[in-house]
């Protein structure tokens, strides 16, 4: 019964169609746990958390379909009870975080380089486009190449292309065993080691450097993890689960700070960047967090330059000026494609205007 009671999709379709008719921008609101992320939201708030509940979960199928307003914590508890998990280890950033918000922001945790990102586990979505039409793309099967993959396109679009009603995700069995090994080393050694090991058949599921020590997480069958541990050496961390949760939630002491937090997403093997400020390395080198002392546009430029040199981009993840160039600027032709795609989904420009880029 709960599942029928918590379906507000018709009301949402109407609200969107109305807003489209009036050309009135909407701010799509989940729990607000990721309100700090992206550019500042504008528009009339449209509350989405009431659209919640599990539509279908069959552990044998490794698939779950849930309404976007469902709390991530509830979803994870349900999966854990069946010995399964969201393998992309999404950060919550608050107890009420919803799956819809996670999908819109496209955020994944420390397991990402080894298991895949949120987008990799999306099998299908139901969405409302900017015309107020309810559309379903993808499905609940593992392989589906009928039509363009519009479900994955929604991930990380910050709600600018459509209002997510529900998401079908592939889930995976919880690892039988996890163990975290710690070793002191330099930044250069850590990066080298993380990447060298990722090229060998070890059951690696996390690799972080906090400025002093390298943390490697192993996940898998007990004999497999034991064998890898013997091979790698290092101290076993007592509260491994707690450590990775704090890294995922940016609650590790490194992040306990009001300074602007930059995220450099670069080729994992890129050597130490030699930038001012404190750094924390996650994703086996592919995600470098940087706390900056004095946020200037000059420094932002420098960070973007360095990130591009190493095959990636820089993003002002938290703090600083949320009306500014928070996301890495796109080259002209690419921005044009973004604007045309935005028009294809949301011709009146009503969904979360300016949240991703000021241009749309």
């Amino acid at each position: 019964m709960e599942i029928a009671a918590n379906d507000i999709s018709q009301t949402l379709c109407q609200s969107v169609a109305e807003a489209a008719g009036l050309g009135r921008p909407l701010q799509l609101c989940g729990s607000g746990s990721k309100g700090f992320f992206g550019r500042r939201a504008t528009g009339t708030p449209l509350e989405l958390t009431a659209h919640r509940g599990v539509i279908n979960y069959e552990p044998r199928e490794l698939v779950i379909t849930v309404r976007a307003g469902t709390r991530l914590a509830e979803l994870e508890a349900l999966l854990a009870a069946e010995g399964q998990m969201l393998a992309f280890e999404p950060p919550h950033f608050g107890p009420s975080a919803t799956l819809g918000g996670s999908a819109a922001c496209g955020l994944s945790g420390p397991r990402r380089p080894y298991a895949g990102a949120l987008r990799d586990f999306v099998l299908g979505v139901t969405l409302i486009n900017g015309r107020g039409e309810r559309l379903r793309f993808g499905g609940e099967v593992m392989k589906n190449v009928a039509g363009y993959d519009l479900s994955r396109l929604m991930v990380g679009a910050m709600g600018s292309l459509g209002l997510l009603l529900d998401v079908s995700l592939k889930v995976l069995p919880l690892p039988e065993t996890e163990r975290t090994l710690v070793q002191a080393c330099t930044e250069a050694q850590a990066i080298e080691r993380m990447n060298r090991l990722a090229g060998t058949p070890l059951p690696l599921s996390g690799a972080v450097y906090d400025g002093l020590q390298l943390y490697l997480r192993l996940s898998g069958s007990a004999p497999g993890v034991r064998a890898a541990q013997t091979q790698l050496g290092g101290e076993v961390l007592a509260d491994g689960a707690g450590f990775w949760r704090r890294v995922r939630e940016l609650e590790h002491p490194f992040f306990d700070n009001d300074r602007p937090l930059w995220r450099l997403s670069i080729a994992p093997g890129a050597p130490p960047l030699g930038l001012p400020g404190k750094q924390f390395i996650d994703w086996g080198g592919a995600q470098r967090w940087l706390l900056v002392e004095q946020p200037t546009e000059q420094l932002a430029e420098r960070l973007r330059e360095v990130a591009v040199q190493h095959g990636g981009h820089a993003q002002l993840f938290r703090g600083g000026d949320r009306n500014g160039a928070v996301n890495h600027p796109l080259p002209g032709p690419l921005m044009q494609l973004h604007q045309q795609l935005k028009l294809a989904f949301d011709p009146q420009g009503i969904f979360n205007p300016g949240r991703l880029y000021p241009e749309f």
Partner: protein
Amino acid sequence: MDHTPRVNPSVDKPGLIRALRQILPAQRILHEREALRPYECDGLSAYRQVPLLVVLPDDAEQVRQVMQCCHERGVPVVARGAATGLSGGALPLADGVLLSLARLNRTLHIDPLNRTARVQPGVRNLAISQAVEGLGLYYAPDPSSQIACTIGGNVAENSGGVHCLKYGLTVHNVLQLKLVTATGELVTLGAEALDAPGFDLPALLIGSEGMLGIVVEVLVKLLPTPERAQVLLAAFDDVSKAANAVGDVIAAGIIPAGLEMMDGLAIRAAEDFVHAGYPVDAAAILLCELDGANEEVSAHLARVRQQLLDSGATEVRTAENEEQRALFWKGRKSAFPAVGRISPDYYCMDGTVPRKRLAEVLLETSRLSEHYQLPVANVFHAGDGNLHPLILYDANRPGELKRAEDLGAEILELCVRVGGTITGEHGVGHEKIHQMCVQFSAAELAQFHAVKRAFDPHGLLNPGKAVPQPRHCSEYKALGSDTLTPPSARDQRARDQDEQDQDVRDHGA
């Protein structure tokens, strides 16, 4: 807004050739009928069309200029890799240019530390793994056509293979694409990093069947070669038991590297052909590959073996050595050509269903097979629920091809009905355009068209494929299966039957 494709109805062929010669050497432009013939179809050779011209650029810059030239003249363009595709996605257009990417076949850079390879689109799938073998790395997606198919084609189709359940499809294994747009601009999508700013455009482009752009460079992710891989072969006296065992193995918390199923007809055909040592009296077999660290594989082998027995297997064998493992797989990989030996023609389908519906769909398929009086062999990716029913027919017998197509259409619609899809990995292309009307609503199809226009406002890239026009769907729904055969192909069917499906047999999925 003008939504009609701006395709020039009367192309000035000599003028186009002259313009292309400013871009490419004369020998890279084929225009005589004899030279064009080899390009008239892809792996689905039931559909044929000789293109207006074939161009064979040598690099991305030439591709860009060719696109610019065609855009200015309103000439449609169909891209082609190795043409092993099974849905007619690379079927040429009579008034269009066929753009072969075969000459863009260089591996540009291998980066062992970052575990990536930068390759041109004409590089063969297997060649990537071969190039990095010495580093202990490989490229995971392995469609059965991997000896011949190219990475550019894999990107266009979001190709899978035998190891998808654990290692994903092309979309999970590509980091960056360089794309020439319909207007001839070069854009880079994705990054050397694990994500890129803005929309996830690689996800959108992968599997877009050449409708949104021409891929001229691909950065693929490489994975470490597992320490050990071991195969189990389980025999069943009942197809449903085998189908249910698939779910049981996965429910036990183990993700096999590959989990394939063959039914009796396929087992016997394969055994006759390659002598893999398969139990020929079984109703079905499952091949289950487990990989990972040595200790992990040992632990999982024991559990999966017990699970298969608990699920009703009459026999479970473990490949005792690398030779036997290769032989077990050889039977599976040769199953398509093996079926080709026992029937003059066959038609390969590609629906995906939820795993729990496998038994039911196989039963219904066998009922349909009886109804249409055409045998169906099943060889497929059971772990993914991705079916490949092979419909056996003889095109020389009047009416059989039509019956095979009708049966195929019923199977695909059955897949949609049980919550699946009309195509798991072969793409819609030309072949399954009608069934798109069954799977998607008018509004959903309109959204696809809007996305297409965002990339290709004049509708010059592979027009007529992948997404049907609304008018087409209303006609299909009104007339039913009488209109099943896509319009351009039927009259060309009768000829060249000896050539038919050779590619499919050699490079089936």
